[in-house]
């Protein structure tokens, strides 16, 4: 087992070029893996599109959406849930990237990665960047299809949403990474789906405006407010209309840092959860 070689987390000074080679290698591998898994790309697109075409059409008349910032006009339900569906793409992608880490660990390819002499935090960050880059591909493909469904944010919005997507992608990716460090086996991942993805998605402003949630249940409203996913959705929603939501930006940035530090600590063989679990390598 190689995970216990702690010296690798204090590298003897590498050049920026070497870091770049490592980053490119990891991003390239993830991209190839994603592009070769056609089903994954298809399912990443079909999932939000099903919500958009079917769910939103059904609820269009039931949930008349009033005007709340950043919208300046009345919007149809489809338009309202689009930022939520974008965040959903990133949420699933973040979890799926971490799922691939569990898979890597089981098959042993993670060992190859972790024996790299570069620092552990850099390897994890590269992995995170790779995952976020993939989520951007998915989001823009979704937005392109949604455009034909008359979801037409201002042109500049496609550009201004990019930094928001990068930040929310990093937050959800690092959360996934943190979670993956706790999951011993692939089979346990279904539990993550049920206990993390669904509650996060439904207890947020992705599908309904929070003022409406507050009307029916103040408690649920507070839960939604505490949910970092809500703030990722709002950050994306505002950015898509070329506006900034400073509160959402602050919360998402802070959560990204916390989750990232958590993930790095968790994957640090000396202190991590895995060390505490008394397990060092793959389950295989």
């Amino acid at each position: 087992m190689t995970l216990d070689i702690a010296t690798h987390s204090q590298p003897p000074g590498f050049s920026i070029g070497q870091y770049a080679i490592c980053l490119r290698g990891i991003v390239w591998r993830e991209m190839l893996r994603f592009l070769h898994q056609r089903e994954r790309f298809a399912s990443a697109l079909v999932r939000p599109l099903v919500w958009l075409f079917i769910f939103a059409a059904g609820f269009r008349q039931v949930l008349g959406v009033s005007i709340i910032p950043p919208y300046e006009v009345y919007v149809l339900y489809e338009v309202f849930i689009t930022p939520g569906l974008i965040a959903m793409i990133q949420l699933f992608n973040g979890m799926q990237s971490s799922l691939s880490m569990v898979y890597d660990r089981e098959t042993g390819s993670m060992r190859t990665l972790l024996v790299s002499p570069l620092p552990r935090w850099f390897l994890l960050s590269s992995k995170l960047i790779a995952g976020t880059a993939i989520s951007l591909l998915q989001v823009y493909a979704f937005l392109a299809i949604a455009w034909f469904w008359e979801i037409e944010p201002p042109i500049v919005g496609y550009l201004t949403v990019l930094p928001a997507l990068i930040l929310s992608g990093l937050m959800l990716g690092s959360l996934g990474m943190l979670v993956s460090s706790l999951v011993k086996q692939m089979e346990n991942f279904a539990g993550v789906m049920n206990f993390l993805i669904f509650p996060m998605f439904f207890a947020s402003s992705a599908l309904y405006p929070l003022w409406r949630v507050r009307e029916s249940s103040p408690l649920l409203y507070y839960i939604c407010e505490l949910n970092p996913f809500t703030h990722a959705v709002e950050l994306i929603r505002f950015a898509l209309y070329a506006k900034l939501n400073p509160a959402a930006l602050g919360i998402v940035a802070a959560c990204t840092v916390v989750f990232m530090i958590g993930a790095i600590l968790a994957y640090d063989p000396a202190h991590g959860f895995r060390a505490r679990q008394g397990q060092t390598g793959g389950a295989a």
Partner: protein
Amino acid sequence: MQLRTVALGAALSTAFACEAGAYTAYVSNEGANTVSVIDMANFSVIATIKVGQRPRGIELTKDGKHLLVAVGDDDTVEIVDTATREIVGTLPSGPDPELFTQDPEGKLLYIANEDDNLVTVVDIAKRAPVAEVQVGVEPEGMGMSPDGKILVNTSETTNMAHFIDTQTHEIVANVLVDSRPRFAEFKKDGSELWVSAEIGGTVSVIDPVKREVTKKITFEIPGLRAESIQPVGVRITKDGSKGFIALGPANRVAVVNGTTHAVEDYLLVGQRVWQLAFTPDEKYLLTTNGVSNDVSVVDVAAGKVIKTIQVGELPWGVAVSND
């Protein structure tokens, strides 16, 4: 660098173009008994004028100096000075005035008296009644032909468009339309008259020469019950190429091709959209949304709703100044 200069120039010229189109819009708030004054340069309410009870019909005099507001529960039409924004007088409109229209010169005002089945003609300058015309039950919509010779009044309960000769003040023809006609609007070339029917859910296109319905525009919005589609306000562009129809509780404005009369689009606006008005350059169309207490701004060329402005309670009518 050059590119930047060009971009800056373009940005500045756009900014100035916006300044040039600084019209003022006036919205009558039926529930609040006020008129909201909107600066169209930045789409914001800049003043609220207290008026009489139940203000509905609203129009500017042709010289733009006065705003006329029909205050139904006070049985009069109030005259507001647009410079000082104060009420400077009233017109003897007869009981319960709702909608009105002016002759092309802006000398006479034709007012529908909903409760008395009358159209009252008032001389604006003299502030005195000139004539009364007996029409059908619950008169409402008032449309003036571009040459000023024919006034069309619609009566809500009789379901008719009455053609009134403005010289003799006699009804010269009646055209049966669908249930509860609300609004009458001529094309600027006088070739067509459009009459909306709230309960019937249609807009009848009438040939003003033959005085018969030549076409009925119908509306269908997927997922909406037919009963919630209630056409009210109608506006047609000066070139006659496009018509806009407020569909009441359907919360949408229909965009209709002026030549083929086919519905091209439905624009989502606020709740219970009632009356419409263009800015004089026809760049924007304003809609009053009675239930959501706001006004939507439609970019006419783009066919998109671009802004919503909060006004007073139950906005009903809207008029836009010429400068």
